[in-house]
């Protein structure tokens, strides 16, 4: 349970630090009158950003738990290390390109360039879609070799990790789809800027998680 405990310690210490910064030591009975949280800059952020931040914490908790389970299961007697399909390198490259494209889209949206934003969003979808197709292809390759989820525990985790990560990507694609349709139907940049930025954060984070998982699978 090391992975999840590590995450929980970071989350708890981070929360305590944040609370400390936000005057959790204040004596509220002694301060009657108007007060304004001048130093509380986080309250000026759009709620979407805070919502996404907490959602990413949930996602991290989920993957940290899967990784913890992986380590515990790996320590048991019947573990057989499995070689990962080479196609994953190509898929990783696609996901990196997806991340670059969404960064580009966000940059263009910030600089009021609707045309580039639209094409960059389209490119994001294409590269990310290619990643999903590639992952399914990798699954097909294993199935063709007769390697199923029940064949051995490391394969079970391989399907599990890639499946759960893929589902998160597909969830992101749903939001991307709405944003892109909005952008192509002539929305002003200020209307979609926040959506693109939230997509950007999510894409980068899921790329980070994928690199973590892929690295873990390669090294074990």
């Amino acid at each position, binding site marked *: 349970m090391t992975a999840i405990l590590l995450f*929980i310690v970071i989350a708890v210490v981070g929360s305590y630090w944040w609370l400390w910064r936000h005057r959790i030591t204040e004596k509220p009975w002694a301060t009657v009158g108007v007060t*304004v949280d001048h130093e509380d800059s986080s309250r000026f952020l759009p*709620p979407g950003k805070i919502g996404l931040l907490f959602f990413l914490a949930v996602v991290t908790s989920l993957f940290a738990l899967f990784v913890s389970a992986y380590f515990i299961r790996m320590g048991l007697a*019947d573990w057989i290390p499995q070689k990962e399909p080479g196609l994953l390198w190509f898929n990783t490259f696609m996901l990196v390109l997806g991340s670059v494209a969404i960064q580009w889209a966000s940059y263009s949206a910030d600089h009021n360039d609707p045309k580039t934003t639209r094409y960059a969003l389209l490119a994001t979808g294409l590269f990310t879609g290619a990643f999903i197709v590639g992952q399914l292809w990798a699954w097909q390759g294993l199935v063709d070799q007769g390697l199923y989820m029940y064949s051995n525990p490391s394969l079970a985790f391989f399907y599990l990790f890639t499946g759960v990560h893929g589902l998160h990507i597909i969830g992101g694609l749903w939001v991307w789809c709405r944003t892109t349709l909005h952008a192509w139907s002539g929305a002003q940049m200020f209307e979609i800027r926040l959506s693109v930025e939230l997509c950007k954060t999510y894409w980068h984070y899921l790329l980070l998680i994928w690199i973590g998982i892929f690295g873990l699978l390669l090294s074990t």
Partner: protein
Amino acid sequence: MAYVALADQGQKLSHPHSFFTKYIYSQDHKVIAIQYGLVAISVGLVALVLSGIMRLQLGFPDTFSFINPDQYLQFVTLHGMIMVIYLLTALFLGGFGNYLIPLMVGARDMVFPYMNMLSFWVYLVSVIILMTSFFVPGGPTGAGWTLYPPQAIMQGTPGVDWGIVLMLVSLAVFIIAFTMGGLNYVTTVLQARTNGMTLMRMPLSVWGIFTATVLGLLAFPALLVSAIMMLLDRLLGTSFFMPAIVSMGEQTSYDGGSPILFQHLFWFFGHPEVYIVALPAFGIVSDLLSTHARKNIFGYRMMVWAIVAIGGLSFIVWAHHMYVSGMNPYFGFFFATTTLIIAVPTAIKVYNWVLTLWRGNIHFTVPMMFAIAFIFTFTHGGLTGIFLGNVVVDLPLSDTYFVIAHFHMVMGVSPILVVFGAIYHWFPKMTGKMFNNRLGYIHFWGTFLGTYAIYLPMHYLGFLGVPRRYFAYEGIEFIPESAQTLNAGITVAALFVAAMQIIFLINIVWSLFKGKPSGGNPWNATSLEWQTPETPPVHGNWGPKLPQVYRWAYDYSVPGASRDFIPQDQPPDGPGDGDGPDIEPKDEDVTMSAS
């Protein structure tokens, strides 16, 4: 300015026009709260009936032909799971969280109203999936609420074909619903507080619900992970949790999995879950005690710190549920120590509740009776928790009725008493009507004394070594005859308590139609939800202008004040203010709130 706009998100509110969008497919947090509450209480009544059937069997074995051993296990399982997840979690966070957060922090609604509505409907789907399991071949799962593998998915356990699958799917769907709601509660508390509502001016109810939600967001994934992996073991034949095992004389295809891994994941969720239920109860009971004792809560800062300390510690005590799993003794020592440490902030809270009552002007209203009763039952359940937190005491008591008695006192009876107290307390705000006092007192005494009559004797049964989850105890030598007499007595008490809840339901329905008008603030309370321009609050909560908060939520009986309470939105030196140290608004602040 920016956050005023956030709290005052009038432009974002959907304005319903038809009955359907106003009361059913609604994005208003108050309607969603009541929807959550009604579904949770309905499904809770199912669980109550299940426990009644279990008690009939235990009290009077060989009497009722409609209960067989398989059904008994199914009822045990569903009773536990429904009560913990689908009633308490959903009611405290989905129900009270939804109703109270925006009203108490001075917002017009949750920050993501559409997602909030979706959260309720997905929750309803999870309840329907769970209830469906009563009607499928083989019935619901009988694996016990902890769903331990390997037995949960092995032939011989009731509901192995359909029941367990529906249970796991329902849990996964519930977690999705909770996450959507939880992101809303957390973000609303952080982003949509009205002007002047600093963190340390929030009522403790909000602190409890907020911290519990953060715990839920981080802990529910552990249940999701265990549910997904067990589903794969059951449906696709993987061996995450399933060891090599012989079933019905035949070797199964499972090999090498670890049932202990499931226990770690389950309890990594399961222990924070205790506090997901307890922290909102802690918060709400603090507000009830303070309001009805007409006295500020004793040690507000300590109460807040204790809530967040308990929240953090709750993640490192989980293995005290697993002392009998054969763990390393040093491991047990570690978890026993952390368990005892978490008793410290919890004890601080109990002392502070008692000290809040000390020399208060106590009004023995119905909500107050439930709040005071909570101090008794919670202290009782907490003390037996210290017994069970120690490895050497836990080992002989594990899986006996002592454990049943402990956790029912601490996270069954105690939170439910707070739920009742809270419903009586906020019913006037939700409906604009007062409940019937006489029925309220009858309900209180029947429930309070009745639950003691159920659970106090169970401790003794536990000391005798009577094991839990058994259908019948005939022929077990070490259990004396008298234990059966005690069991019969417990059953009578349980049926009595169940009948008392009918009085509660009658009171609610009767008061809804015939109750006296309550006015906007019948308890003379200080917190913002009692200061709404209309009762019950209308869509948007606050009329044209959001409230400005000038003080904390506990200005009761302030020396020199003309009334014994000063609402949070009353300016300093306004009518009835005391002689507390005032801070003059600075020019820039006034500009800020005015804009």
